[in-house]
């Protein structure tokens, strides 16, 4: 990658290959996302999205190819390596502990300890954690009462909000969201998408994996299309329409149309 390219992208891959036995899930995938932008990653079933997400989040090391974080080569053996590199992922199952509250989940595995001897013994600073968590929730518009109740008592949208807020508050470079609106209703979906926009506005790169084309068209700045294990297209939002995206995903050609307005197809 050239120096200028490197400086621009938050997370990139070049020529990544992954095989499961005889099946080639990824056949040399290139991927880019930039800070402050929402990059949607789309593709039909079997295109290799989930495998690519595993590579991006550090859960899987590619058989070949390179991964770059802020232009520097990156090798992950576990998701904690990715977290150390500033990449946070929100998986579809959310990975929340249902019996714990939003604050506890926010700091899961990264609890803030008290100062001094007590802290050395492992005593938690719940007040500090609650203050930070409440602030995060407020900024991201996540509507929960962080002080009470366990996560299992919340609605799907609230839980999504907690999971995203957790990833966002720890991420330094990239937040990857795997199908965040798949299980949500219309109103909750809008809440999540608003949050996604806010996250990007903070300067983080957001990678949004989704099946939902209207989500893609409403919130993303760039769209990367995967097909049969390769990146087949990369659009700026302005250049994309539902037809072009579907055509890219399925391998057909789009009927040429006038460049759509920025907000068409979103609401």
């Amino acid at each position, binding site marked *: 990658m050239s120096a200028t390219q490197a400086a621009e992208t938050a997370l990139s891959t070049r020529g990544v290959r992954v095989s499961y036995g005889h099946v080639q899930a990824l056949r040399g995938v290139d991927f880019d996302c930039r800070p402050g932008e929402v990059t949607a990653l789309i593709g039909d079933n079997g295109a290799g999205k989930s495998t690519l997400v595993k590579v991006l989040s550090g859960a899987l090391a590619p058989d070949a190819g390179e991964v770059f974080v802020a232009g520097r080569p990156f090798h992950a053996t576990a998701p904690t390596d990715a977290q150390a590199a500033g990449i946070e992922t929100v998986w579809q199952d959310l990975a929340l*502990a249902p019996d*714990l509250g939003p604050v506890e989940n926010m700091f899961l595995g990264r609890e803030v300890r008290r100062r001094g001897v007590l802290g050395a013994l492992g005593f938690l600073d719940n007040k500090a954690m609650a203050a930070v968590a409440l602030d995060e929730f407020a900024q991201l518009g996540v509507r929960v009462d962080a002080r009470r109740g366990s996560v299992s008592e919340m609605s799907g949208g609230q839980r999504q909000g907690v999971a995203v807020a957790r990833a966002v508050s720890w991420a330094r470079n990239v937040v990857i969201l795997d199908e965040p609106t798949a299980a949500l209703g219309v109103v909750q979906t809008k809440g999540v998408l608003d949050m996604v926009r806010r996250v990007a506005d903070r300067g983080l790169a957001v990678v949004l994996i989704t099946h939902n084309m209207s989500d893609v068209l409403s919130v993303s700045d760039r769209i990367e299309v995967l097909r049969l294990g390769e990146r087949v297209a990369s659009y700026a939002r302005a250049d994309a329409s539902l037809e072009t995206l579907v055509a890219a995903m399925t391998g057909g050609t789009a009927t040429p149309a006038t460049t759509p307005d920025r907000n068409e197809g979103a609401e």
Partner: protein
Amino acid sequence: MTRTAPSSTTDLPPLTAPRGTPMDRVTRHPLFVVSSALIGLVVMFTIVNGWTFLSTPNIRNMALAGSIMLILAVGVTYVIITAGFDLSVGSVLVFSGVVSMIVMRGLGGEGWGTALVGLLVAVVCGCVLGYVNGFLVAYADLNPIIVTLGMFGAALGLAQVATGGQDLSGIPTVMAQFGLGRLVEVPWVVIIAAAVAVVAGVALHYTAFGRHTFAIGSNKEAAVRAGIPVRRHLASIYAISGLLAGLAGWLSLSVYGTTNIAGHSLDALNAATAAILGGASLFGGVGTIAGTVIGNAIPIVLANGLVIAGLQSFWQQVVTGVVLVVALYLDRLRRLRSSRRSGKNSAA
């Protein structure tokens, strides 16, 4: 964490549920049901049996009767919170006591030197056996019920091999005095059990170790992804349960003066009952030490009260079973009510 200044003041987080009156907060508290049950039993027995029930000697009896079981129950609470189970605590208690007794008899001596060596031996024995359980559950991925059931048999069998099948006596004199001794009228054994409960409760609810314990029981996969060393943690939880069983074994020696090999086969179930009565969930992720203390007290109060009331002790087991089922049912109702409430109020 990356943070910017708050973007707007209009997004004040609303509440998931109305706070309700202070009375509501009491009745909705997770320990409400079991505490009420205990208080109800005490009141009932005081009415039926008169003030002897609340006399100092009687309360002291009940406290002493529940102490060793409480120590076991505390360890088992930790295990249940991780969605595990420990059927072996009674046998580990026996085995640790046997080994401790053999060592102390071998050393001879009636003083604290011998007694403390015995204590160390018992605790280490228990810890080692507990760690074996934990290793098999955490690293070999075996079902905790099967593993601890195996340990239940193996530890007891080993104890019988070591003693040739008969109970051993002959603890140092200071231990016998300690087992009967009191500090300001409170038996030492009760003090130790209380200390164990306090330390365990504080660790469980105020430290990262305790927090991780809940996380593992609530969603093991989430804990793994959060970077918590789940396997190491789980193994150490079972080691703690074993360690406490070893401590209980030594205390049992000091109270009874004998290894009592045949007398601990039901301990694990009684300990688990105490934890579950106290609100620990078999699915993991939920439990308190305070609840376990109360849950442990209920069968003790029942046993004592029924004898004084003149009812055959068989009824005690029946009533304990009924109380357990009722407590579980009421707890389930409380959970249903709370989730229905949050469902109605979800806005986002």
